[in-house]
């Protein structure tokens, strides 16, 4: 199989990402051109004059830009986490939510919304983050007490997912009126509306740290291809590598889910799609998967907010509508292997 050169792929992907961001922030009711956006960026960096009116400037920089950037960060992070999870758990169907992080986050967020603990968006994110960590902690403790092998980790994740989904449904049933139920639903499916620069900065910072951790472990991840014992005989300290990588990806997933809800399928499908371009070796796979994930979600979010304008489709619905056919294609592709 011939493979594109990873450096070229990565460079091309980054250019595509910059273009995508500058184009998608112009899509919407207020008519603005990409050239104006670049000029306005220049003005903000002290070069030249901004061609935008103050209102246009506000729309671009306070509304659309943070939203577009969080979509990019989220796509990059979910694709990265998915690729790492699939390799570490040796399971092609693993995704960033397989350890119950998103279910725990939902329970935390719903508890905040429905039970009225705290108020406002910040406490919702905080509640989601705490829920995500609780769920992840439960999975790690459970799988550790069951012997710590990868299949135990997956089974513990399934248990946590079921438990926290049930808790979420129960909480909603118990006390929600129609309006809050709709708000909860929208959040559960993932939404990039209502994000601000604080979310972008926080998530981007976590992404940068976790990306660095994962890139430092690329050969370790390669070593897991033939299982944990094979990895150990290649010099990997398996328990330590597993703990570091699972914790890092869970933290990133928790940060993303807390800001924008559980956007499904990106973390499941894009790593597979990327492997077809780069092969399975992680030094090539991880950075390219992150860039492709970023570009993908930037466009999916643009579709989500404009397709039924002024009605907004939850971004998780769009990713799933795109993702399910792709998922089936992956299943067909992996038929007869193993």
């Amino acid at each position, binding site marked *: *199989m011939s493979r594109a050169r990873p450096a070229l792929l990565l460079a091309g992907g980054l250019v595509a990402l910059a273009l995508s961001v500058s184009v998608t922030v112009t899509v919407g009711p207020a008519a603005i051109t990409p050239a104006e956006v670049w000029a306005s960026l220049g003005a903000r960096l002290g070069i030249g004059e901004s061609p935008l009116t103050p209102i246009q400037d506000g729309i671009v920089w306070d509304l659309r830009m943070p939203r577009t950037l969080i979509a990019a960060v989220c796509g990059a992070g979910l694709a990265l986490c998915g690729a790492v999870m699939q*390799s570490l758990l*040796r399971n*092609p169907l693993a995704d960033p939510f397989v350890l119950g992080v998103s279910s725990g986050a939902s329970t935390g967020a719903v508890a905040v919304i429905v039970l009225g603990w705290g108020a406002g968006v910040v406490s919702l994110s905080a509640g989601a983050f705490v829920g995500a960590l609780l769920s992840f902690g439960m999975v790690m403790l459970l799988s550790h007490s069951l012997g710590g092998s990868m299949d135990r980790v997956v089974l513990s994740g399934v248990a946590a997912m079921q438990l926290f989904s049930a808790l979420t449904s129960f909480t909603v049933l118990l006390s929600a009126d129609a309006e809050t139920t709709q708000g909860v639903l929208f959040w559960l499916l993932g939404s990039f509306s209502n994000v601000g620069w604080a979310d972008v900065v926080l998530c981007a910072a976590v992404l940068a740290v976790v990306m660095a951790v994962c*890139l*430092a*472990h*690329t*050969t*370790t991840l*390669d*070593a897991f*291809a*033939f*299982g944990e*014992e*094979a990895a*150990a*005989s*290649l*010099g*990997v*300290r398996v328990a330590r590598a597993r703990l570091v990588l699972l914790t890092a990806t869970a933290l990133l997933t928790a940060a993303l889910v807390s800001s924008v809800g559980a956007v499904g399928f990106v973390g499941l499908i894009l790593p597979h799609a990327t*492997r077809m371009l780069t*092969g*399975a*070796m992680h*030094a090539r796979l991880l950075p390219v998967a992150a860039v492709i994930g970023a570009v993908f979600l930037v466009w999916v979010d643009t579709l989500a907010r404009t397709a039924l304008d002024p009605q907004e489709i939850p971004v998780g619905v769009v990713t799933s509508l795109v993702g399910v056919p792709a998922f089936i294609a992956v299943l067909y592709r*992996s038929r007869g*292997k*193993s």
Partner: protein
Amino acid sequence: MSDIATAVEDGTGAVSGSPSQGGHLRADGVVRRIGGRVVLDGVTLAPHPGETVGLLGPNGSGKSTLLRLLAGVLGPTAGRVTFDGDPLPRVGRRAVARRVAVVQQESHTQTEMSVRDVVGLGRIPHRRAWTPVTPDDRRAVDTALERTGLADRAGQSWHTLSGGERQRVQIARALAQEPGELLLDEPTNHLDIQYQLDLLELAVSLPVTTVIALHDLNLAAMYCDRLVVLRDGRAVAEGTPGQVLTPALIRDVYGVRAEVTGEGDRPVVRFLRRGDPEI
């Protein structure tokens, strides 16, 4: 039982090889319990540099566990495994993997990898984080591919290989580790006879110390310099194939009747049916 009794040197069932110090990889009086069961019960194994040691014994006799202890992927409950005199935990996982390579009975992956990718895994213990593949890594992989006759198949997908070819790739991967010792756990199971002979021929031709667990007594007799027989976690016989493979030992350890022919250190074992007369 007399054959067995004479082969056992002391009460722990220890069988020793070279007594010389600084003798690379060795296990001394190792005991291993798994889930309350004693799988290994005081075994000493010290391969001489460059020789091929065959581990024999029925299923559950502790062959695989002994290899895992030697590889350092499992720790002994008692006793110690040392490399140049240092216990393996002190040597460190990466350093051990630079000296000791393992080929398992079978290798499975769902990952889409080329032959070269798989062989390249052998360079992992030599590579540093954040550092791309070095010319040394590439050279080691090329050498391993050539030595195993896989140079022209480097680009082929792992999933298109037969069982025998996969084992050959795993040996190439082990060679890319540039080890001093090679541990093979029943590497010829599931293979056609042609591939069995090919693989063992390849394994013993390598300039490394080899410890290989085998089921087939005749293959062990053909390819090994020295045999160690395990039963119930104890080493019960040790020596050249000619010394070890006697009808009495085969009866005691495996519970079957056999006649042993052939000259010197390469005996031939023929198993007997119930009605066959003993010679």
